[in-house]
Structure formats: C-alpha cells, structure tokens
C-alpha cells in the first residue's frame, strides 16, 4: 500500500509516494535524497539516524513515515543556513568532535534538541541528551566539550610553515557536519540492483547448493543468484598465499555468517527470500568452539592444509631464559584470557559497483583501497588495472574494514549483470560476517632481581583465529615481538600459536593481539611490584626501554623511545590520584564504594611487521593555483586527509588551507598502503613530506630560485620571493599534465625493516610508539560494577602533527580499551546487535587528560610516529591495575563483567573469613 504522504523537512514541503509503514530514515535517504541521516542499526540502538520531530529527538529508523506527516522534521541538512554552518556545527569542527563523522549528524541533532530547550546546559544534561547516540571513534569527550562550548567562535588558522603542530580543524570536517559527506551507502544509484548475501545460520555444516533456475523464473524481481560457480577464483585472504576464505561456499560452511549464495534483484525481493526458500541443503556438523576444542584429537579439521587446526606457530628467543630462571629473586606468573571483540563501527559495510567496458568500478567503505583492488582482480581473474576501487568516506574501521566484505560479490554481480549493483549490510549481518579481535589464552612468567630489574620474560600465547586465516599470521608475529612489554629484558622466550575454530574469522582489530598480550605483561609488572614491595610506576620506569637498548628481537633502538618521559610526566598525577583515592576510601570505609588507581604501559611497532610497506604520495599545483594532494591513504576517521596535507604544506612552504586532495581512488592515486598498523602518519606522512619537498624543488628550479626562497599563491599566480627578489609565475599559462597539474612532486617511503630469523630476531619495525596510562576507578563492592573516573594518558608520538587529532585518537582508543576491559564480549548467535553487544556510551567514559610526549623519530615526517593503535593498548591493563588497587582482586579475564568481579569479590571475602 503506497500513497502520497506530505512531509515538511527543514521547512520544505515534500510529497512522497511511499508506504506509510516505511521507516522515516529510508524515506529521507532513498526518496528525498537527504543522506545526511545515517543508518547504523535500524533498531534504535545507535542513534545515528536521530532527527527532530517537532523539536524532539527520535530515531528515524523506528519512525513510521506516516507518524511524521504534518510534523516539523529537522535533519542535519537543515542546520546550516545558506551554506554557513551554525554555531553548533562550528563548535564541533573547532573541537575535533567528528572523526569518521558517521555519528555526527545524530550527535548534532540530539544536541540541537537539548540546546533549543536549554541555552547553557550542564555537562550532565549534555550527556543525557546525547546518551542515545553511539560513537566508536572519539571517546565522546570532544563532542561533549563542543556542545558545552557552542557560544564561542574562532578557528585555528595555520600560516605557511606552521601547519605541523597546529590544532587546525579537519579539512574534511565541514562535509561530515553538514551531512554532505558520502559514505558507503550514500551514493548508490537509484536503479541499482540489490545484492543480498545469504549466510549460514550454523557454525559448521556441509552444504549442497542446487539449481536456482526455477526459483529465478518464478520470482518476480529476482534477477539472479550468484553461487560459487560464478566465482572465477573462489578464495580471499590477506596474504598472497593461503587465501582460504571462499567468496561463496562450495560444499562447507565454517562459521555462523559464512556466505553461501548472493541474491541479486529488486531490493524488496531479495530481502523477502529466506534460506528456507532456497534450494540449499545444510547438514550440520559437530564444529569446533574455542582453542581447547580445536586442539582435541578427533576434532573437526577446518582446513586440509592445517592439521590439528593449527594455523601457525612461532617462537621468539633472545638470550637464555632457562639459564636465568632459577636464580631470579622474584618471579611472577599467571594465565589470562580474552574473548571475541567486535569493531562495532557505526557504519555497516556498504558499497556499489558498476561495469565500465571490461573494467569494474567499486565504490565502497574500506581501509585498504589497493589491497581491495588486488584481491578483487584475483577473484575475478582479471588484470589488476581492470579494477578500480573508489573509496567512499569510511564510517569507522578499526581494522574491521581491511578484509574485503561486499567488494567481491559486487564485482562479480556488476560484471555478470552489467548493471549497477549495491550491497548494504544490516547490523546483524555486519556483526555475524565481519572479523573480530582474536580471543586469547596467555600464560606467562616474568622474573626480576631484587632491585626490580627484569631478568627474563616467558610467554605462551594461543589465539583463536576463527574459521579463516584473515590476519592470523600478523597477530602471531606481533605478539612475540611485543609480549615482553616496553621494557629492556635480556632474556625472552615467547611462543604464539593460532588455531582455527568454527567461529567468525579473527582479523585485525586495533593492536593485532598486542592489547591482549599487554594485559598479561602489565599484570606481571604489578605482580613483581607487589612481590618486591616497589611502586608500580617506579618498577616500570626502572625497566623502560631506552634508546641504545635491545628489544626482544635484538633490535637496538636508535632514537625515539619515550616511555621513560611518559612515566615521568605521569608521576605527579600518579601521586596525586593515589592520595586522593586513599582519602576517599578512608572517608567512605563503611560504604561499598572503593576507589583505586592503576597503571598500564605499552609499546607498539609502527607499520607492517618485518615486511616492506611502502607509500607513494604525489602533490601538484594546477593551472588554477589549486594544490592537489594525490593521496592513496584512506581516511577512516583517523585524520589523514588533514595530517598529510599539514605535513606536505610545511615541506612545500605553502599554506595548508590551499590544499585539496583526492583520497584513495586507485585510478587517480598511487599505492599508499592500507590504513592500519598505525602507519599512515609515519609512512605516508614521510612520503607526503618528500612529495612536498620534491614539488618545491620543481618550482624553485623553474624559477631559478634558491632553497631559501619563500612561496606565495594568489589565485593562479605563484610568487617566489628570494630575499626581496620576486618572481611571479602565471600558472594558467603553463602546460598541464593529464591531471591538470603544471608542477608535480612525488614522495616514496618504505620504513627500513628486516625479515626475522628462526628465533624471530631482526628489525621488524623502523620505529615504535610508547605510552603509559593511569586509570582511577570506583568499584561498587556489592554489585561488582566498575566506573572509570579518570584516565591520564601519556603518549610518545614523536611529534604531534595535529595535537587535537592526536588527543582524539587517544581518547577514542581509551573508549575501546575501556570496552575491552569492562563490557565487550561477542558471542556468535547471541550478541549480533548493538543492544546485546555493548560498547561504551558517553556516560561510561572517564574524564581523560592527554599528555603528549614528543621524542622525535628521525625517520618520521617532522619527527612523527603513529598513534592509532597505542591509545587502546594500555587502557585495559591500567583499569585492571586500578580495580586490583581498589579491591585486591587480580583480574585474569577480559571483560570483567560485573557478575564476574562480584564472584571474585565474594571468593575473596570468603577466603578472608576463613583465614
């Protein structure tokens, strides 16, 4: 039943011919073209679709369009007046409140509803107002600050040569705050065929796929069904060999969510068909769940090439652990467990594709354009240049959009049907199908002499890599390298193993196994401190690795090892917070509230592990005087669209404000590598610097000017001033290349690393990030709940190219670390939505203070390293350390849900009574 419905949206009347039951969000986006309203879950769990109805915030995804009729509908597109952003949008921009930007429209509308009722709200009122909107990037602090600071005006402007280090607003901030930004689901052609992937409801099953001819003939709106028979090379995976994940199942499925077939046709038709309607027979097998089952004799073997379900096994050996273990003064040991964790980016996987002659073009949300291109070309068995990946804006990735999702089926469908095709995951599909953080079982033993100097570190780490390899090998490499912590340890032995199970593929998730290992090594440090009666910060400071010392891989750090400075910077806070919590606990000794302070430290290798990972960046000036950065690095919210121009601008000597960029399009940019491993600022940043220098050289050579000359752009005139001798170039008169550039520079950087030998000795990374965080928590002893009150985070980033963005990365990392520590546990079939899978809301976040330490990295651009992942790594250890300080309970499993902590507290109570 469709009919005409009249809507008044942002003061404009619209007549739409839709069904009254249609979700308002779908009508806004699909019928009216207002794609600023985002859809993250279609279930009211994320608030991305928040709009105002008569001034009150509602989720457009739960509003029948009939109920919006006759009411005043406001969307993000209605905030700006005649292209001028309003004061709230400007405040969001000024504060860096948008990272990926997918939650920004919802946040803005929720805050608008509050501000229309209350001009000067309190922090608590702001939190209540935006409590229904989830953000996975920012940690919320800058959003709250932006709402509170709505009345102020003014933005940071960086002069030529002063872009690096300036807190300039994101260059792509405006489009994210006005609703103009186009994400994966925002630019789908109206005539696109829809692709729906039918997935396995069972974790392990044999599959028989029949003929679809009859179904297709009988079903109106079903254009076709893709099966494995349509896939030229039916396997994908991160590494050049071992592409073990089928695009579409052949005869088996290996996890709940494994792709079986893909329906192609009219949107409503493909949505209405269920597995039961299809000629598919599943015969359930007894699958493998968890590491111990995977290891069992007689367990289902997931892959023929991996007996014992063992993906990989490796051991790092430095010095001689066995020799020193016996005569060490203090030994700590323990076993730790972590579970599956979901990325929960607010933008589900989405994209569309079309065939252009013998090529395929894919517009998709991704972290890795060139990897996607190579993968799709291999699946289609085409030359790589026959595939174009045009990344859309990415609404959060965190590692989860490194593996291909919709890309292969879209490419196959576009080529087969020669029509635009689109695929957008619903939230449950996104959660079922996508990769997860590796669950881990870690056993370790650390030793120290009586002064607290570490003598050895031993660790065995087993990882559940799920059904397919994905990034399993990377995790298996990262953990031995990092497992002894950011300390100088003369003797190290660490073994890691990855096991296949009938669970979602474990992939890349901010930290590649290092956050799991950090929980273990930091508990060891606390144990040793207790054993030796030392201060927890002091023992870390004593052991903090410094330039000139050898890592576990035998790499001598040459520079930029700033853990010591981080810990020194935290010291005053450490003492202050400890005395405050002691006073609090004394005052409240009869209450169930107990406060504690804890500390966690970490290090993190920047870039791929012991592999080449180059980046090429180009920059040019056009006849019109516009500076264009050919930027192959995908901005997933972390800010490369701003960081790379900042670096390039200072290398070139022109203002960053004159920069525009092309992001990620594989037809227009060179390979800058993937946005992962905290590598883009360091690697592509260096390439941007070199590109800027190169362009400057071209210009100076053309003008016959020396190094010291200054440049100035005014429209299409470029002035070169060399000590008062001014030359002016009329750019419009110069010959342009195919891209319209009259001058062009290029930069290439590949961080110097070596492969690792059989004992995993070598130089896996060119540089490392370091950090330490202090957490203050309050535990409710009777309920086992933990509230994190404050985090002080000190991070050595080499050089903060944009301090505001560095803070944002760390704050967002802290939010994810807090989730990992306290609430996030993905259980297939149980937590496949954002109300059963909990991520932190604004009300769960502590007050965060970021202390930026700049121990310059000589290899990096202007001394910079990376910060994307380090923000998350020390948080869970710091929180666990604080819970232990408050309660005496030593945490060995993440997340420490209230019922688990309460059980430990009761155990402790009982033991104390007995003793």
């Amino acid at each position, binding site marked *: *039943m*469709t009919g005409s419905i009249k809507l008044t949206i942002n003061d404009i009347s619209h007549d739409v011919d839709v*069904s*009254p*039951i*249609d*979700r308002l969000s779908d009508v806004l986006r699909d019928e009216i073209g207002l794609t600023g309203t985002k859809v993250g*879950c*279609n*279930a*009211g*769990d994320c*608030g991305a679709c*928040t709009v105002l109805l008569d001034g*009150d*915030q*509602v*989720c457009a*995804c*739960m*509003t*029948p369009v*009939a*109920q919006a009729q006759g009411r005043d509908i406001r969307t993000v597109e209605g905030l700006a007046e005649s292209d001028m952003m309003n004061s709230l949008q400007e405040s969001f921009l000024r504060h860096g409140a948008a990272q990926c930007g997918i939650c920004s429209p919802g946040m803005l509308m*929720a805050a608008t*509803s509050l501000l229309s009722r209350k001009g000067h709200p309190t922090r608590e009122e702001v939190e*209540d*107002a935006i*409590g*229904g*909107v989830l953000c996975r990037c920012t940690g919320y602090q800058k959003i709250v600050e932006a709402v509170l600071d709505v009345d102020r005006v003014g933005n940071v402007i960086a002069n030529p040569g002063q872009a690096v280090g300036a807190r300039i607003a994101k260059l792509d901030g405006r489009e994210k705050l006005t609703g103009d930004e186009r994400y994966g689901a925002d630019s789908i052609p109206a005539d696109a065929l829809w692709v729906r992937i039918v997935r396995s409801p069972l974790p392990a099953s044999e599959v028989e796929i029949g003929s679809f001819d009859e179904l297709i003939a009988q079903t109106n709106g079903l254009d076709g069904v893709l099966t494995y028979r349509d896939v030229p090379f039916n396997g994908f995976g991160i590494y050049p060999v071992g592409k073990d994940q089928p695009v579409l199942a052949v005869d088996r499925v290996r996890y709940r969510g494994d792709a079986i077939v893909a329906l192609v046709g009219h949107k*409503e038709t493909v*949505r*209405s068909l269920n597995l039961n309607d299809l000629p598919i027979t599943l015969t359930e097998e007894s699958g493998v769940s968890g590491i111990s089952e995977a290891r069992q004799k007689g367990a289902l073997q997931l892959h023929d090439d991996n007996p014992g379900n063992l993906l990989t096994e490796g051991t790092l050996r430095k010095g001689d652990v066995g020799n020193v273990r016996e005569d060490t003064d203090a030994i700590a040991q323990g076993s730790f467990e972590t579970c599956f964790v979901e990325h929960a980016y607010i933008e589900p996987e989405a994209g569309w594709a079309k065939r252009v002659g013998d090529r395929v073009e894919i517009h998709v949300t991704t972290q890795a354009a060139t990897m996607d291109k190579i993968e799709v070309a291999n699946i289609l068995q085409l030359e790589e240049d026959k595939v174009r990946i045009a990344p859309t804006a990415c609404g959060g990735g965190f590692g989860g959009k490194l593996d291909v999702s919709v890309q292969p089926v879209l490419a196959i469908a576009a080529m087969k049907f020669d029509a635009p095709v689109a695929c957008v995951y*619903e*939230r*449950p*599909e996104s959660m079922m199908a996508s990769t997860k953080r590796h669950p881990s079982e870690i056993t370790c033993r650390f030793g120290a002499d009586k002064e607290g100097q570490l003598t050895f570190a031993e660790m065995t780490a087993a990882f559940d890599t799920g059904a397919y390899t994905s990034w399993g090998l990377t995790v298996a490499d990262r953990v031995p390298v990092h497992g002894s912590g950011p300390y100088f340890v003369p003797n190290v032995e660490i073994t890691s193993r990855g096991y296949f199970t009938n669970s979602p593929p474990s992939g890349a998730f901010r930290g590649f196994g290092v956050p799991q290992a950090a929980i273990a090594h930091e508990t060891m440090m606390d144990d040793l401190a207790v054993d030796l009666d030392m201060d927890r910060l002091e023992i870390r400071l004593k052991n903090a690795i410094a330039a000139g010392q050898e890592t576990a891989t035998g790499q001598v750090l040459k520079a930029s090892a700033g853990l010591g400075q981080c810990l020194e910077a935290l010291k005053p806070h450490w003492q202050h917070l400890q005395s405050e919590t002691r006073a609090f606990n004394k005052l409240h000794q009869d209450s169930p509230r107990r406060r504690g302070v804890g500390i966690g430290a970490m290090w993190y290798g920047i870039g791929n592990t012991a592999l080449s990972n180059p980046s090429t960046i180009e920059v040019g000036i056009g006849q019109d005087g516009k500076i264009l950065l050919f930027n192959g690095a995908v901005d997933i919210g972390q800010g490369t669209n701003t960081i790379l121009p900042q670096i390039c601008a200072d290398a070139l000597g022109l203002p960053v404000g004159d920069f525009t960029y092309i992001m990620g399009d594989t037809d227009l940019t060179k390979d800058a590598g993937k946005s992962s491993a905290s590598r883009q600022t360091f690697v592509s940043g260096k390439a941007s610097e070199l590109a800027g220098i190169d362009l400057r050289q071209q210009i100076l050579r053309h003008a016959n000017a020396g190094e010291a000359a200054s440049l100035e752009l005014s429209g299409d005139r470029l002035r070169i001033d060399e000590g008062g001798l001014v030359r002016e170039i009329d750019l419009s008169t110069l010959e342009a290349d195919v891209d319209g550039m009259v001058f062009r520079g290029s930069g290439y950087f590949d961080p110097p690393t070596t492969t690792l030998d059989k004992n995993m000795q070598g130089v896996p990374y060119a540089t490392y990030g370091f950090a330490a965080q202090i957490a203050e928590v309050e535990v409710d002893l*009777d*309920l086992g*709940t933990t509230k994190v009150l404050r985090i002080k985070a000190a991070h050595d980033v080499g050089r903060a190219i944009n301090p505001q963005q560095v803070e944002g990365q760390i704050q967002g990392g802290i939010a994810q670390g807090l989730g990992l520590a306290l*609430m996030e*546990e993905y259980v297939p079939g*149980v*937590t496949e*939505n954002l*109300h*059963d899978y*909990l991520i*932190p*809301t*604004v*009300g*769960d976040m502590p007050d965060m203070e970021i202390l930026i330490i700049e121990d310059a990295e000589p290899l990096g651009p202007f001394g910079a390293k990376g910060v994307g992942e380090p923000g998350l790594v020390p948080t869970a250890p710091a929180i666990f350390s604080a819970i232990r300080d408050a309660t005496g309970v030593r945490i060995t499993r993440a997340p420490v*849900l*209230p*019922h688990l902590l*309460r*059980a430990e507290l*009761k155990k402790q109570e009982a033991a104390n009574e007995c003793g």
Partner: protein
Amino acid sequence: MGEYRQPHTLEELQTALKAGTAQILAGGTDFYPARVGQPLTQNVIDITRVSGLRGVTEYPDHWRIGATTTWTDIIRESLPPIFDGLKLAAREVGGCQVQNAGTIGGNLCNASPAADGVPVLLSLEAEVEISNGENVQRLKLEEFILGNRRTALQEGSVLTAILIPKPAEEDARSMFLKLGARKYLVISLVMVAMVVEMDASGKISTCRIAVGACSEVAMRLTSLEAELTGHKLTLSLLDNVTEDKVKLLSPLDDVRASREYRLDAAVTLIRRTIERLVTA
C-alpha cells in the same frame, strides 16, 4: 504490502480492529527492531493519532495514563511523589530518542522480561484497560502480562490505558533502581521498584516491592512487603532484606550475568531502594 490504518477516534479504532488481523503500532520502538532487514508487509493499526489515548488524567480515586503516553510525557508531567519511581524508570528507558517515541502501553504489550515499566507499575498496583471496540475490560497488570512476550491481549483488542489507584495515605513515596552493564541504552540486569505509604504515626501501612529482569515476568515480593509493613521507614528495615526473600525469583543465567549474580544484586538493589526512600 499490508494495510496501514491510522484511526483518529475511538470509533475509527473500533472499525479498524474489526477489519482483520493487524499489528498494533504505537511508538515503533519495539516494532522496527524486530524487523531489521525484513520487508514490512503486515497490516498495521497505528494508534498514536487516536484522541484520548495520550496523557495523564487525575480522577478522584485513580490516575489514568493513556496507552500512547510517551516516557517523555511522563517525565514532563507534574505528578505527585508516588510517581517518582515511574519517572525514574522513564528516564532509564533507552536514550532520549526512545523516551520520546516509546509508549507506556507499548512497553507492557511488548512484555519483555526486562521491560523498564513493568516493575514500577506492579509496585503502583496498576491495572490495564483493554478495549475490543465493544467491551472495555480491566485487568490487573499481573493478569495481563503472562510470560516472556505473552500477554492476555486478544486479537482485535487494544490496550487503551493504565489505571493507577490513589494511595490511601498522604505520605506515599516510590523509588526505582535499575542495574545495567553501562550507563545509557542498556537492558536491565536487575530492576527494583518500591512504593511505601506511611500512616499518621509514621508506620508503613502499605508496602509494595517488585523486581524486574529476574523472572519471566517482573514479580512482587509479597512476603518481604508483609514483613516491612507496620514498621517505621528506617534503615533498620534493611535487616529484613535477606537472600531468602528473593528465592522465588528465577533469573536467567546468560552472557550478561549469572543467575546467582542477579539474585545477589536484587538483594543489594532492594536494600538501596529502601535506603533511598529513607533519605528521600
């Protein structure tokens, strides 16, 4: 594609109810989440425009809360202290978006074991009014919600209002506490709602305590209520709140919390509810 009816009067609603099988829709906050990725094909009667179904009205011996009254309506309405618990519960429902759209009637009809409105309405001795177009029937809330997602609502009937009797005493207070694993947008692990009325001498003449999310349907703890009645509202009441008082509850053992924990937390929450009432 189904029929979508949007009656404006009770008469039109009656006609719509008689027209055939249809899903009643109010705020949509349970309807849409149950249909993620599915085509919306069923017949629907949207009752949000029916006049007289929204808002709180005071009568000599009771209050009437229309079924389509939203949680925000309740928060914004000026109401006596016996509704404090209901207002607290309203603030804990989802986020502001859900409070603005979700209705009190819908919360009851959806009959989730973790429904935020149920324990507090049990503690208020609420009745529901059901209409099938010809007859209007009143049922105690206990008789209306039968189990997990099961109610006494018959095909062709609609819940039109919730009726709250007025307290006998002048001094009537209420309280509500919810425990979840995060601050906003969270499904309850345990909820406790409590109403106490004090006679002129300050002794508890009426006491009602309900616990939610710890059984298929939220439950009253009648034996504990009886124990507390006749005493003054002081902290010494806490001694009565012992583990055996929650034994009749049968909470789930799931990924969010163990059964043992929920019982344990229920005891703690009951004690804290009393503490808050004492200090209120």
